[in-house]
């Protein structure tokens, strides 16, 4: 049994921490498989809904997964279905061309090998070098952004929403400059 399927098996026994680790291994490949939907649907919605359905499947379904990386392959199929559901909703009110999206071939994906300690170290080092105000905004977003809206976070820092977001943009640019100086390129932090 592959490492990612071992984590999913533990999740089936109700181990939520194992499920969190499973999500960490599945997140990048699922994200990569969804990029083709990026213009039409909010991928964050698809990711969160996919993971919630996989948790439900883990804890309430007796369905047996077979083959290597079976839990990841199942998650990819779930993600594709969730994206299609979102597409159907998007069709009601968008001018984005959706032609061909659903018929695009699947990408071959492998589970994530796990955290990259050198990348994490470089990011943490660069975060320390960001000026105080932008760093405070970014740190608060990272610590609480999963459960609180940006408007709430801005109020906690006594900032207007636009100012809060602009501070995060500044933090991102500062982080990008620092990482580039270390020879690290993480596409998207920085554009």
């Amino acid at each position, binding site marked *: 049994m592959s490492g990612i399927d071992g984590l999913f098996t533990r999740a089936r026994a109700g181990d939520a921490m194992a499920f969190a680790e499973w999500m960490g291994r599945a*997140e990048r490949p699922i994200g990569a498989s969804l990029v083709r939907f*990026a213009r039409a649907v909010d991928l964050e919605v698809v990711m969160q809904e996919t*993971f919630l359905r996989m948790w439900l499947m883990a804890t309430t379904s007796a369905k047996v997964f077979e083959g290597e990386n079976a839990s990841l392959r199942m998650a990819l199929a779930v993600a594709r279905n969730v994206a299609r559901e979102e597409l159907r909703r998007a069709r009601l009110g968008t001018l984005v061309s959706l032609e061909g999206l659903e018929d695009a071939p699947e990408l071959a994906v492998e589970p994530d090998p796990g955290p990259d300690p050198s990348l994490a170290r470089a990011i943490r080092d660069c975060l320390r070098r960001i000026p105080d105000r932008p760093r405070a905004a970014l740190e608060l977003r990272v610590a609480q952004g999963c459960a609180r809206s940006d408007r709430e976070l801005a109020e906690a820092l006594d900032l207007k929403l636009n100012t809060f977001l602009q501070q995060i943009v500044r933090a991102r640019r500062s982080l990008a400059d620092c990482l580039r100086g270390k020879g690290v390129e993480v*596409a998207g932090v920085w554009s």
Partner: protein
Amino acid sequence: MSRMDDATLLEAAVTPFRERDRTGRILPSPAFMDLPPEVRDELATRQIATREVERAMHPLGWSGTVQAVMTRILGG
């Protein structure tokens, strides 16, 4: 609220926070809905990179997406 420029709008859509409707359905970010389609490609790339930064900053290595789902799971 004053109108956001594209860079600020993009940043507003990067957050893992998503509202839910009364049935529990996760709703798209309002900022995403306001983004021009050609900018949404950039959003996807930026979300991936942001999740990387979140993993580096979280004590258990959880991205914002994983944190949001775990909040839902552990909170019932």
